[in-house]
């Protein structure tokens, strides 16, 4: 669920850009280091970026019969670690904006914060926690992807509610409204993505 170009007021667009920037810059440093260390690093990261983009372009069937796209943030965070995902996720978001008109450039900061920062970190944390507590690889992957998805949508709802608070009930009211609009579809989608991630991770572990 990308916030469309122009949907956020300028102050909000700028503020979220500032919020996401340190993570992306940190990730860019990590990426530069990886590339300098070994020459195959560059090609592997390019492959990882393309994988992230194409993953988010797959249509997954949802309960309502309509279809939706996985975010891939949980899987990406498990495979490539959150700092690098901050850069790869941002590159993916720029391509989605310019190649598919999903999201936008003024909303890039906000979308990067939810999908390239918050989602991967939450997903990765939950994955690690699940593994520490003795969960299997599959359980960790499922919970991680579920958490990444859900936290992405929660952050998006917060971003929208902050930008467009309800004149009577304020931020809290707007958050409840946005939460309600997205929860119906997104909880199921998060479960579907969790299952998908579980299957993929199992498949990769086998081979």
């Amino acid at each position: 669920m990308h916030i469309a170009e122009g949907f956020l007021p300028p102050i909000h667009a700028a503020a979220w850009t500032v919020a996401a920037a340190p993570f992306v810059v940190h990730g860019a440093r990590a990426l530069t280091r990886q590339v300098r260390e070994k020459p195959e690093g560059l090609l592997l990261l390019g492959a990882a970026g393309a994988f992230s983009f194409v993953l988010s372009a797959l249509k997954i069937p949802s309960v309502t019969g309509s279809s939706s796209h996985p975010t891939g943030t949980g899987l990406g965070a498990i495979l490539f670690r959150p700092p690098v995902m901050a850069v790869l996720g941002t590159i993916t978001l720029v391509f989605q904006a310019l190649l598919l008109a999903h999201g936008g450039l003024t909303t890039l900061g906000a979308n990067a914060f939810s999908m390239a920062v918050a989602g991967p970190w939450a997903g990765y944390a939950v994955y690690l926690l699940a593994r520490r507590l003795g969960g299997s690889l599959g359980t960790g992957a499922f919970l991680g992807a579920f958490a990444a998805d859900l936290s992405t949508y929660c952050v998006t709802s917060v971003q929208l509610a902050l930008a467009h608070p309800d004149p009577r009930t304020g931020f809290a009211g707007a958050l409840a409204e946005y939460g309600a609009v997205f929860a119906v579809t997104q909880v199921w989608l998060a479960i579907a993505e969790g299952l998908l991630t579980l299957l993929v991770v199992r498949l990769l572990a086998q081979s």
Partner: protein
Amino acid sequence: MAAVRVRHAYDGGPAVLDDVSLEIAEGRATALLGRNGCGKTTLLRVLTGGLRPAGGEVRLDGRPVAYGRRGLTALRTAVQLVLQDPDDQLFSASVAQDVSFGPLNLGLPEAEVRARVAGALAALDIAGLRDRPTHQLSYGQRKRVAIAGAVAMRPRVLVLDEPTAGLDPAGVESLLVTLGGLRGAGTTVVMATHDVDLAYRWADDAAIFDGPLLRTGPARELLADDDLLTRARLRPSWACTAGRLLRAHGLLPDGPFPATPEELRAAVPSPGG
């Protein structure tokens, strides 16, 4: 089965298929030839239900295919397509898993799925690969696994797009033996290829894209027509060229031309004899 007056164009582009008809006779080997970009692959996708043609119809057992879920399931149970690049077709961790994909989707009981997997691996002569990860196999082995995945569906018609591409001569020979086995078990086989000599050797019937027209007929007639082959931007075959010259000089008896160098050597008497 048959494609009848099929038309197709991709997304507002020019027509790729324009009024093309092809009848595939049950039990026979059909070769489909044409230069790259002539519409061969599109026709194969139309025939196998991967693409719904913009016009015309595909017929199975004389009845037009319905593009609902049931109609497509019926078509896909009867006809299977194997793509040129096996990596476009393999997506499971192990060989056995990949081959079981189709039978599982048919909703068959587990014992039956196992039997089909074993049968398909045996038919392709790769029973020894069953537990290997697909991406560790050689190209020729991956190609066989991809074919096994289609064979496990027990199709009546097996359609192969450029199955010999990327194989070495020994690989081509053993693939032809395998296809012979499948045909012996009653499967109708269709093969798209660029290789006129291979088609002459293998096929009963041929279909050649002559520009937008699809010419069809017995392989031994159609593939001996050098004018047609030239128009289709293919090469004349060695078998027909050499055979014709030798026959003109009385060195080769009547009948089809020897289809391989080995056959030719055996068929022509040495000058002393």
